[in-house]
């Protein structure tokens, strides 16, 4: 199942990537060749193999429930483009 140009447009929109007219066919081809590789891999018999969630042979370490961070707002907000009353300001969101 090959991707159409419209699929790539949709994926680009979801990822908020602005692809221009020249890039769209190029990315459509590139993505389709990746899917071609996936198709080849589909031929491998994977029955009885547990899906891989992570390439490392390890499990998640947990941390104790302790507050270890202190208020560093001023330092973090020093690099923010716009702040007011301790809030980060962003272009108005219309839902």
């Amino acid at each position, binding site marked *: 199942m090959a991707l159409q140009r419209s699929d790539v447009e949709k994926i680009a929109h*979801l990822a908020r990537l602005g692809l221009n007219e020249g890039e769209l066919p190029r990315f459509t081809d590139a993505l389709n060749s990746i899917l071609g590789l996936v198709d080849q891999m589909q031929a491998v018999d994977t029955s009885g193999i547990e899906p891989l969630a992570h390439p490392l042979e390890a*499990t998640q370490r947990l941390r104790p*429930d302790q507050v270890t961070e202190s208020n560093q*707002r001023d330092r*973090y907000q020093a690099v923010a483009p716009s702040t*007011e009353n301790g*809030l*980060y300001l*962003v272009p108005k969101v219309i839902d």
Partner: protein
Amino acid sequence: MQWEVVIGLEIHTQLATQSKIFSGSATTFGSEPNTQASLVDLGMPGVLPVLNQEAVRMACMFGLAIDAEIGPRNVFARKNYFYPDLPKGYQISQMDLPIVGKGHLDIALEDGTIKRIGVTRAHLEEDAGKSLHEDFNGATGIDLNRAGTPLLEIVSEPDMRSAKEAVAYVKAIHALVRYLGICDGNMAEGSLRCDCNVSIRPKGQTEFGTRCEIKNVNSFRFIERAINSEIQRQIDLIEDGGKVVQETRLYDPNKDETRSMRSKEEANDYRYFPDPDLLPVVIEPGFLDSVRAALPELPPQKVERFQSQYGLSAYDANVLASSREQADYFEQVVKIGGDAKLAANWVMVELGSLLNKLGVEIDQSPVSAEYLGGMLLRIRDNTISGKIAKTVFEAMAAGEGDADSIIESRGLKQVTDTGAIDKMLDEMLAANAEQVEQYRAADEAKRGKMFGFFVGQAMKASKGKANPGQVNQLLKAKLEG
């Protein structure tokens, strides 16, 4: 056309941890904006999330309490969408392998029957920040204090058939998480929020109708009203020849209606995938055993025990066990006061209406369990009557001290001296000679009511302090002449 309503709920409960699910920031509600947002919460490049073990333990407690299977290996996934209060551009959640699998919860319906509601799953995830849409010169303000707060999202089966059932289920979940101590249940502060999936279908049809999701309803009352108004909207729509469109809606309590937020067709495709920053979480059987061993007594067991141990009715047991705080208060009163039925009555009736009037929860009661228990002792040893006890209770509520000191300072001790009561009755009867004549002339059927009159006069004459049992006995003897 007869319609059947189908409701499924997604309940987000904020877990009562000290720190966030993936960072060491505090989770305190109501702090100054962005003072509890660390580099991890801000989604700065190069940071790594590290899972909070307490969030895992709390999720396991919930799973065990609803008889669910706990995933021995659960995996975090990224849910991708763009919104300014989600700095990373994805929410860390769980998709294919949630921590809590299929379980169930029983709810009591109004007619007293018990209905079992299926819980499909419950998964751990992080909360987003808050967008403040007040105008900051045309901009939106972002507070990320809440970003990264641990949530347990509890997803039900579409098992509910009315708004009332849905509310009963939310209340049962609310009581359960508070019993477990894993969520403070404060709906006004957003600690427990509910998304309601509502659809209708002709009665008898097995396929589900198209559903709408009402987002973020945050009180029991609004859940019921939002669902009912959505049901009516769907019925009107279909009966007028229209079709329900699958979409997300918002409930407006002022207009008592739901309105469209966004249609699912245009909704985000979240492109879940396993989060490479987090390894699979393995729940060891030994850990689960220790969680199970530490589970508190849960509402169903408590209701049963209240009936068998204290001889309470099913109704009383249910009311008293509806919150852990109330159940503990009741048991403390019984421990001191001794009489469980008397304690149940006082906690449910007098204390209940006092708290209602003050608008406070039982843990802020102005009358402590120790004081109420102490007062019940004085009722039981006949120091005061049940009627005088109400005066004592009011005085305790007003902060006048414990029952003994109030009885002493106000001189409320019941009169049990037969000689004194005898004398008081003679005076009272002499003052009501006419009524005495009438009583003696009356037939048995009418005497009951007339006798009540004399008892009333006697209690009035003694300012309520005469022992009612003795008054009855002596008065009867005197009137029979």
